[in-house]
Structures are given as structure tokens and as C-alpha cells.
């Protein structure tokens, strides 16, 4: 198993190299770059005073070099104006728009992004599982139809609309401030019990909003998967031993029905980051999403590149985690090699 994980980690290196190249290539596809855009804007308005500084920046960040060199410098495989100084060396790049290092722009948003995503995943699993199981075991009952209806509503309602409605309700019923991640007076304060509570209270609405469609989709899938398993012969075998229905359900069909969900962990992460952009904008949440959106719009290439690469790394790790978990939980995958030899 350890061997397998090591091998997978090694495979991740060329994968990441390929992804980084693709990201850089796509970000650079549009004409020009952040600075040349700025320069032409200044020219059109007639202010040419600070053009010199911008030209200097262009040189400083090697934006005047050919594409492959620029990529090499960004990654840290090619000597830039300051020698080897790229992602590999720990320099995450410079954000032109914020006029700050990328690390400082992204840094504060990352913990919140991760916390929000984790909370959303947990929410999806916690809500979808009991409902999915109920729907499958009580197929075509009133409860099943009700959950199905709610689920379809959840799938069909645009997230931002739900966000606005819930935000309004949260404010008028519980007096939560509209938007933001915490009460304003906690901003900039050191962590304290009150601050944590405030953050948690503010996370509830976004988690529900971002998680609704995922929950609805998962309920439908779990119900279908479980319905496939529930009538299989091995379940009858277990029943004929005299097991309690609830225990039986969890031990046998649910365990088998879980596989697709474990395999899905890796895919969840990027969709949660990119899917929550609009909600984050509407709810004014300082997550990575809106930053990425802004960076892409203004061609702030190092910032956008870094965020995209970060999401890719998360995805790769998620894939690894789900593969390892699958191997651990499903003997058919773990012992597949031996099984094939027989």
C-alpha cells in the first residue's frame, strides 16, 4: 500500500507539470498581458507619465520574453531577471492588480475557502445520506416523493437566488449581518470564542446555498445506487440469517453503494471552488473564488495561474485520497491483481 501511494505521488509530478503548462498556455491565450493593457489604457487617456514605470515592470517580470521562457521563469526552471526564482523556489509570483505578492493576496482567503468547502462537503454527505437511504428503502412512499420534489427544486433553483433569499431571511429572523464572514467588529481582531461563533453563524447560509444542488444530486444518485443493490441476492442471504433490517442495510447494500461517492471526492473540490464564485460574490465572502474571477478578468496572470494550480493540486490530492480509500474499502480493487491471476 505504501509503495502504491509513493508511486502515485511520483506520478503526480509529471501530471502537475503538464497541468501548469496548460494553465499558463490558456491564461496567455488572449492578446497582451496585464501591463501592456495598462499601458495602452494610459496611452488612450493621454497620461503617459507612469508608462516608464510599467515598462520597467514588464522587464522586471520578464513579460517581454518569448512564451516558453516566460513559462520557465514562472515555474522556476529558467533564469529570470533575478536568477532562478519561480514556483519551485517558493516564489508564487506577483499580483499586478493588488500590487502585492500572490501569497499575500491569496493567503488570507485560503483557510476560509478550505473551511467553507469542507463544511459544504460535510453538509452534503450528512444531509444526503439519511434522505437517500430513506428514499431508497421507502421507494414510492409519500416521504420519497416529497424529498424528490424538494430535491428537484434544489437542483433547479439558481444558487445566487437562493443566496439572496436566505440572506434576507437570516437577517430578518436571526439578525445576522448581511454578507461577510463575521460581524464587522471582529475583523482584524485576534481569534476569540466570539469570533469563531460569528464565523460559524455566517458560514451556515453559504454552506446551505452552495450545498443544496450537490445534496439534491447526491440524494438522487444514492437512491438509485441503493435501489440497485437492495434487491440483490446477497441482501436476501443476509436477511435469511435473521439480521435486523437497519443493521443489514448499513452493513451490506449501503457499503456497496458507497463506492461511487468515495470515487467522487477528487471531483468535488474543483467544482466547489468554481461553483461557489457567484455565491461568494453575492454573499461578499472573502474566498478564493471572487479573487480568481477578478484575476481572470484583468489578466492578472500570475495570480490566476497560481489559484488554478492550487485547485489542481487539491484535485490531485482528492483523487489520491479517493483511490486509497477505495482500495482500502473494496477488496475487489485491493486484491484485483491477485484475482486476475487466478
Amino acid at each position, binding site marked *: 500500500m505504501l509503495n502504491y501511494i509513493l508511486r502515485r505521488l511520483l506520478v503526480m509530478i509529471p501530471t502537475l507539470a503538464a497541468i501548469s503548462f496548460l494553465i499558463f498556455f490558456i491564461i496567455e491565450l488572449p492578446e497582451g498581458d496585464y501591463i501592456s493593457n495598462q499601458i495602452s489604457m494610459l496611452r488612450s487617456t493621454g497620461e503617459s507619465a507612469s508608462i516608464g514605470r510599467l515598462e520597467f515592470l514588464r522587464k522586471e517580470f520578464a513579460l517581454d520574453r518569448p512564451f516558453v521562457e516566460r513559462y520557465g521563469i514562472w515555474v522556476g526552471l529558467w533564469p529570470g531577471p533575478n536568477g532562478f526564482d519561480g514556483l519551485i523556489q517558493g516564489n508564487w509570483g506577483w499580483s499586478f492588480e493588488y500590487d502585492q505578492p500572490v501569497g499575500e493576496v491569496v493567503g488570507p482567503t485560503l483557510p476560509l475557502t478550505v473551511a467553507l468547502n469542507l463544511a459544504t462537503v460535510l453538509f452534503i454527505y450528512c444531509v444526503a445520506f439519511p434522505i437517500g437511504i430513506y428514499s431508497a428503502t421507502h421507494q414510492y412512499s409519500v416521504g420519497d416523493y416529497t424529498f424528490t420534489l424538494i430535491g428537484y427544486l434544489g437542483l433547479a433553483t439558481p444558487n445566487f437566488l437562493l443566496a439572496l433569499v436566505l440572506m434576507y431571511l437570516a437577517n430578518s429572523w436571526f439578525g445576522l449581518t448581511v454578507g461577510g464572514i463575521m460581524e464587522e467588529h471582529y475583523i482584524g481582531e485576534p481569534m476569540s470564542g466570539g469570533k469563531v461563533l460569528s464565523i460559524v453563524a455566517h458560514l451556515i447560509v453559504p454552506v446551505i446555498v452552495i450545498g443544496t444542488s450537490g445534496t439534491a444530486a447526491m440524494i438522487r444518485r444514492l437512491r438509485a445506487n441503493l435501489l440497485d443493490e437492495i434487491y440483490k441476492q*446477497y441482501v436476501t442471504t443476509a436477511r435469511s440469517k435473521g439480521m435486523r433490517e437497519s443493521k443489514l442495510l448499513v452493513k451490506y447494500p449501503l457499503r456497496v453503494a458507497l463506492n461511487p461517492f468515495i470515487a467522487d471526492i477528487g471531483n468535488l473540490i474543483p467544482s466547489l471552488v468554481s461553483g461557489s464564485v457567484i455565491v461568494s460574490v453575492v454573499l461578499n465572502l472573502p474566498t478564493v473564488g471572487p479573487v480568481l474571477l477578478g484575476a481572470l478578468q484583468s489578466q492578472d496572470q500570475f495570480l490566476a495561474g497560481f489559484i488554478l494550480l492550487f485547485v489542481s493540486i487539491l484535485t490531485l490530492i482528492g483523487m489520491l485520497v479517493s483511490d486509497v480509500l477505495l482500495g482500502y474499502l473494496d477488496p475487489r480493487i485491493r486484491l484485483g491483481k491477485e484475482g486476475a*491471476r487466478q
Partner: protein
Amino acid sequence: MNLLDVKGLSVEFHGDEGHHQVVRDVSFSVPENKCVALVGESGSGKTVISRAVMGILPAKSRITAGQILFRDNRKNGEQIDIAKLPPAGPAMRAIRGDQIAMIFQEPMVSLSPLHTIGDQISEAAKLHRFVGSKEAQELTKDMLRLVHFPEPERAIRAYPFELSGGLRQRALIAMAMICRPTLLIADEPTTALDVTIQAEILKLIKEVQAELNMTLLMITHDFGVVTNMADEVVVVYNGEVMEKGSVEDLFLTPQHPYLKALLNAVPSLSMEPDERLVPIRPIKPRTHHSDLQPQPVGKTHAFRGTALIELEGVCKNFTFKNLRGKKRRGMTTALDNVSLTVRRGECLGIVGESGSGKTTASLAMLRAFPLTRGKISYTTEDGPRDIQGFSEKELFQYRKKAQIIFQDPFSSLNPRRTLNEILQEPLVIHRMGDSLSQGARIRELIDLVGLSPRYLRRYPHSFSGGQRQRIGIARALALNPEFLICDEPTSALDVSVQAQILNLLKDLKDELGLTYVFVSHNLAVVDYISDRVAVMCKGKVVEVGPTRQIIDNPIHPYTRALLKAVPEPSLDHKLDFSSLAGTASSDPTQWPSPYRMRYTTVPYLVEIETDHWVCAPGMESMRDIVGLGGSHI
């Protein structure tokens, strides 16, 4: 003393089209320490009755009337009415798995793929005996030993997919036995298994029954199993009991016409050469049409009995590949120097257990894959041709001549095509005629297999298994082929339907002058339909000859073991459980000399009688023994 009394039991299914009585007023009793067999075709309700006794009826059904009285020996013979107990309630759960246990039909799907054998077997002990995991493990090992599981210590950590079908069935039996139930229900426990393994499992069930003082309720459609296992028989048809009594009474003097009909529909090894099976619902093929005339049998190059297809030293190895497609060291020999001749106008049966290479051999004749070694020649009008050397165009023409009927009629028909489209497709592919003449041809084919043209617009799901197999036959006949591969065409069908299909195949062969290669694991079926038989084991042909000679005078130890393991549906030829050879009979390295084969031994066929060949590599060096004649070797 009766352990189980079923009185006036009625079970109802409620589906979308209202209620449907599947079991009507069924009464029978199971005396203690006896074996009672519930016999019937599929759909007769026999399984539903057994599920009702277990309290595991499907959700859409319920018991509408009657009693299921079970005498609880652990509570001083107090009688419990299972029909009144809520199926998922604690009282029923306490009985289920503890006092009444069940063995299921399909060992391949009856075990959870994600849990170890040990976990699944010990579960019932933990539930009913309240033992700790250590003790449960010991009990499990005891049970695995009882069912002669090899290496019980290791087996408890094995997963079902690592085991063969026979071993899984043993695990299932161990699972049912662990609480030493007083009543064991066995639902077609051997239907999915090879004959030799079937005989062993039956022997095992008998042994365990005696050892644990169990009462057995056996559900089966196989009269061979009934005569060998049962003391009493209950015949069920369409949800009602037709006839019941002791096995002797029923087999010697069957009263009810249904039972008589059912008995006549079963092929057996002791049938007369010209005896014909009588299907319960016979069909009449109609072959009066003009372009379905018999093949030109009389011409000089193609008279009956000459070689049509010849396999010479055919070898096929399969190499295991890992996920990246690189070759691994693992390799199996599916065909090992197979030499066979299929003669024009005959039916050659190929018999063997699963994994013997019988299907591979027949598929090789269709050029379904490239051979590792050897040559397959097909006799055309210009003499024999190697089918490996066919060009694309020649192969396309060859496809018209050679067709196949598949084993599973359920998955071999496209569920999204109507019957008309299914039958038309081969004609369209081979551009035979315009749509008008194709329509006429389809009507002929439908007639030929005894179906009605009214069905042409239906989809496969609305046909029964037997009807689907007839569609499969019609499709294979669409191109007017010269020879047909029948790959276990009746193994998925009921005995009564089996007789119908076998008779249909027989009639078609005679009337259309076809040549068959009939692959089957059922010796009685092969005996009924084939002129000659080839017995295969582990990719080798071990014996080949005229059917009667093979059946009456088997030479090879494997053929003998195979014949000995066939349960005959008559009381005079009961299985001799004590002389079963076990798994050794299918291991070439354990055969006695001169039949023994090491891994490198090349098969060598010796002609023992006229046309009767046996694989005996040891005789290559001492040919004089052949003079001794068959039976002494």
C-alpha cells in the same frame, strides 16, 4: 412427527395490474429428519413457498391465507405459525437463520463481494448464539471443515470473488449450518454448478443432514436431484400442488398428467436411441417454403459424413494483461492440441465442465480469435481451406455459412430492437434481397421456429426464455447457414422448455440438412441430440467417439467420473456417493497411467474401438496394450 406443516397457504403479488395469486391453497408437511422436494417449473411458485416459510417474501407480496406451522424443538415442540409473525419482527428473526436456514441458488451472487467469507459465515452465530468474535471464528472454522473446505484457517479471510462457484456454494452451506438449524431449505442448490461439483455438493448436503439431524426442504426442477435426495416429493404447477407422496410412489406410478408429462420431457442417459422427448407444450416447425430446401446433401463433394470442419493441433493461449496492457507472466492454455473433425450432417457434442475449453473450441471454428497454433480447415466447393487464411471478403462469406446460437437468451438479444429488426439485421448486413423479400424471409423464419408473425413488432422483454431462444435460433438460420454452433442453448431453460428446443433443433437439422456443434455440460442433453461426442477437460480432448459408445463404454477416467456424477431421474440408477472421485478427476496430473498428463505432455489420441478415440499419452510408447480392448484399461 412433522417439523413443518403448511396448510392452505395462499400468497398474492400486487403489481401495477392488480393482484395476482402466485400460490393457491398449498398444503404439505415436512416430517422430521426427512428430505422433501418441492418440484416444478420456473414460475410455478415453488420458490415463493420457500420464501414464505423463511419469512423473506418480496415486499410486493403477502400471505393472504393459510398457516405455516413450525414445531420449535427448542421450546418443547411448541408450534409457531410463521404466517402470522411479522416478517421483520424479533420473533421471526429469532427463528430465521437459527432454526430455519436457507441455501440459495446462485453462489456467485449470494455472497457480499465486500466482506470476507469468515465475516459472513460467523454473522449468524454472533446474532443467535451471542458468541464473541473469537468463538465465532472457531465455529466458522468448524463449519468450513464440516463442508470440506480446503484450508479453513485461510479461507475465513478470503473474499467470495477469490473462490470458485463450488467453493462459494460450500461457504453458503457452512453459513446456513452454523447455528445447526433443524430445518434447512435448499433452493436449487446445485443448478448453477458443473455435474461433478453438483454430485459433490449433493453428497455434502446428505452428509451434513445426517450429522446434524437436519430436516431438508429442497426446491428443484431437476428430477435427477429429486430421485437421489428426496424421501417425499411435492409437485407444484402454477401455484398449486398437483401431486404429492413418497418418491417411490411418484416415480413408479405417477398419477397426475402434469407429472407424467414433466417426466417425459426430461432427457436421460438410459433413453432408447430413437426415443423422442415429449415437451409439455410441443411446437411444430413448418418448413414447406421454397427457399428453405435442405442443403444439397447428395452432390459429390458434399455427401453426408465427409469432413466439413477439421481442427488440427489447435492451441489457444490466453495471456493475462495488467491494467496498462503489458503482458504478464500468467497464461492459461484454453485449447491444448485439439484435433477434431466435424462431419457434414452430423451433430457433434462437446462436453466438459466450465473452463474445459469447450466454448473456446467452438468459437475457434467461427474464427472468433486468432489461434496460437494449429489449423482449422473448412471444406468448400473447391476443397478444404484454412479459415485462418481467409481474406476479409472470404471471411464475410464464411460468416453466412457458420452461425451460432448463444447460451443466454436474455442477454443475446438487443432489448431495444423489435423481433422484426433482430431477424432482419443479418439479411441487411449481407445485402440479401430487398426489403420485400426480406420481409417474406422473416415470416418464413418465424414459422420455422413455431412463433407467430403477430409477434414481429414486439421487443424481446415480452417473450419467455424459451421463445427468446427460438428467436435466437431463427436469427442464426436467417442466412441459410451450413452449420450451427449451439453453445449450451438450453442451460438457461426449464426442462419442459428444454425438450421443446431440443426437438426443434433436431427437426431443423433433419429437414434443413444442417451440421451442429452442440456444446453442453449436460451429458443427458448431449446424449439425446448428438451423433458423436467429444469430451474435453482443461483444454484437451480426452475422448471422442459415437455417443452410444462413449456413454455405454467410457474409457477415460475423466469421462467415467463425469458419467458417474450425472444424477439420473430414475430410482434404479441412484448416484453412488461413496465412489465419487472428487476434484481429482479433473486434474490431468492425477489421472492414472496411461492417461496421466504432466504440464508438458502433448495429448495423444488412441483409437480403442472403431471411431472411438481416447487421449492416452502413456500408450504412445506401448501400443500393444490397445489390443487388450477398452474396458480393461
